[in-house]
């Protein structure tokens, strides 16, 4: 059973503890140009999670403030992983979709494939890598909640078995009329480990509500064709593949568990 996080957006007070926890645990630098909180909060290679501020109208038409924590959704069938021929992205059995920097060749197919625009590229680095939320997989493996989840003072998150959380989410929104009758992540792109409930319709909170309910890997072919990388010459690709294979073999000798396929 995979682990998940249930996010109840009605409870968030916008303290940003979760964004700080993510920085602390993952030792990510602060991004001076892009804040982790507020109206212009932005996911970047350094900001693996942000809390967006949204001023919206509630059901009665009154202006209300909502805060939306964003991070990787950890899809059940992740498009990023299936787009990554280098297997730098892997779905673990516990749920997190994790990234191995040493396997990454920097092709950025993952970025194009991700329906939520999550993976980010370290543009400033000489040898850039892709980055994103790892769902704190080393914690999750030990049965601990992700860093961001563990610090929230307002009870926004619940960490546990995804299927249990889904049941719980259903019963919460059935019992309490303030919630919109939609669990974001239940079916989106075939289901995600992070599930959201809210009292304000998700499209007003900046969620991508027009994503397919089908899992994405079946579309990967189409995605590949849509990429701006079609112009890459075969030579480059093959050279890349050569190095990648070499590394993969070398590494799989050292450390087998990193390679799923």
């Amino acid at each position: 059973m995979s682990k998940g996080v249930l996010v109840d957006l009605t409870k968030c007070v916008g303290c940003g503890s979760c964004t700080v926890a993510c920085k602390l645990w993952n030792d990510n630098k602060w991004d001076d140009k892009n804040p982790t909180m507020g109206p212009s909060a932005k996911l970047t290679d350094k900001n693996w999670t942000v809390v967006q501020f949204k001023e919206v109208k509630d059901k009665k038409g009154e202006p209300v403030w909502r805060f939306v924590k964003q991070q990787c959704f950890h899809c059940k069938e992740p498009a990023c992983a299936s787009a990554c021929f280098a297997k730098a992205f892997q779905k673990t059995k516990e749920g997190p979709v994790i990234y191995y920097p040493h396997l990454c060749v920097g092709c950025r197919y993952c970025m194009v494939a991700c329906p939520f625009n999550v993976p980010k590229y370290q543009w400033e680095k000489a040898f850039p890598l892709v980055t994103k939320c790892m769902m704190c997989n080393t914690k999750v493996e030990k049965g601990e909640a992700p860093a961001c989840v563990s610090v929230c003072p307002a009870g926004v998150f619940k960490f546990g078995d995804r299927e249990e959380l889904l049941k719980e989410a259903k019963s919460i929104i059935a019992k309490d009329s303030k919630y919109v009758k939609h669990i974001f992540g239940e079916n989106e792109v075939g289901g995600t480990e992070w599930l959201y409930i809210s009292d304000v319709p998700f499209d007003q909170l900046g969620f991508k509500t027009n994503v397919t309910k089908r899992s994405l890997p079946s579309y990967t072919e189409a995605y590949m064709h849509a990429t701006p990388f079609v112009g890459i010459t075969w030579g480059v690709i093959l050279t890349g593949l050569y190095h990648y294979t070499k590394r993969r073999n070398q590494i799989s000798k050292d450390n087998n568990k990193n390679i799923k396929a």
Partner: protein
Amino acid sequence: MQNQQEGKDKQKQITRRGFLKMMGGIGLTGITATIAGCSTDPAGGKGWMPQQYQVASSYPIQVKGRIPIDPNNPSITRDDKKCILCGQCIEVCQRVQTVYGYYELPIKNDITCVNCGQCTLWCPTAAITERDDIDKVVKALENKDLHVVVQTAPATRVGLGEEFGMAPGTFVEGKQVAALKQLGFDAVFDTNFSADLTIFEEGTELIKRISGDLHEPLPQFTSCSPGWVKFCEYYYPDLLPHMSTCKSPQQMLGALIKTYYAKEKGIKPEKIFSVSIMPCTAKKFEAARPEMNSSGKHAGKPQLKDVDVVLTTRELARLIKAKGMDLNNLPDKKYDSLMGEGTGAGLIFGATGGVMEAAIRSAYFLITKQDPPEALLNLTPIRGLQGCKEASVDIPGVGTVKVAVVHGLSNARPILEAVRKKEAPWHFIEFMCCPGGCISGGGQPRTSLPPSDEVRQARINSIYNADAHIYSKRKSYENQEVLALYEKFMENPNSHLAHELLHTHYTDRSKQLTVKKKNA
């Protein structure tokens, strides 16, 4: 060095194309470099988290997270880079001030905060600080067109010295004035003056309520602590009729600086820039309240604020240090006249119980026309750090006046509930937002973490010591400059002009939150 430069140049040149080209050909070195420098672990998880979060599950068994701060909060701000998620700010906001966690979720359209700044005193890394307004003051001081006036609160003179290595509570009144003069302020006034003035206005209001001349309920609540006022506006708006309509001493003096002082000196109000030095972060919020423009309205220029900028004690210390001055070496100077005189009664406003004690000294005189007995000059039952204190005072002609004193907002709740249930026996209640009163306000030096009662007591002792031994006058009605103000300008307490300049009204803020029924 050269290598570094090369690296930087490379970094600049690397485009997507370049990178792929590098992969294809010359990239070998690049890739091996990446492999060599790289472990086979997944990304992330190499950092650190405070101990209390290293537990399975997310059940809230320990202190968690931190308070939310609105980026537009006029009083406090936080540097996320310094935050270690220790949870101290939540501890003080929730347990000592009963603000955070006392409203239902979802929040409405406000991040509930009374601007007290107690969180700035508890934050061990100083991630939370007052909003820094030093630059505005420096600019005003450099502007030769402006006449820059400053006032200092009672409590800053027993705190400021700590920023310069002096023992907690060191009395630096004269040195503070000297520093402000050296900084270039055109006039240095004392908020003690308007504290004395408050006694006239608030005392008169109380007597009117007791005698029935004013149809407002008893007990009367003091209104000089802006954190407390906002707390009442949020959580007990139904009790706002109990709140004295008197402005706080800061705002009274602000309004007088741009009216009375402007008139006496023949300076246009718009040429005056009014600064105050306060132990309090909520004063920044208070000064920014839209209705705090009485002097502007009086002059037909409603855009003028009564107080332009509020600096905390800590900000003043930074400003003094930035100018290369050392408070220790300054000779004592005196406040300027017109609004620089203060009595011991005004001074003790800085400590919990002080407003009440000062009020009783004067009420006794105003009612009996006689000086209060010695015992009323040392009203020990309402001094000290106990959360709620009470006393009964026999005033000939009125009978027994029952008073209560509360400091720290958690202590206010049971008293307010009693008032709500009409079970409160008191006539007059002093509320101070911060534990210990202004001497431990959110803008005072961070002497110990979390703030300790020893430090609070040392500052309080210093205040009462000055009242008893340093100040020559101990009763507000002896303040000659206040009497002159009434004679020349204001006529009498609660006069029409006094109401225009020295009194205010309140805002029901209960629509900005859903008050929790059963408090956590």
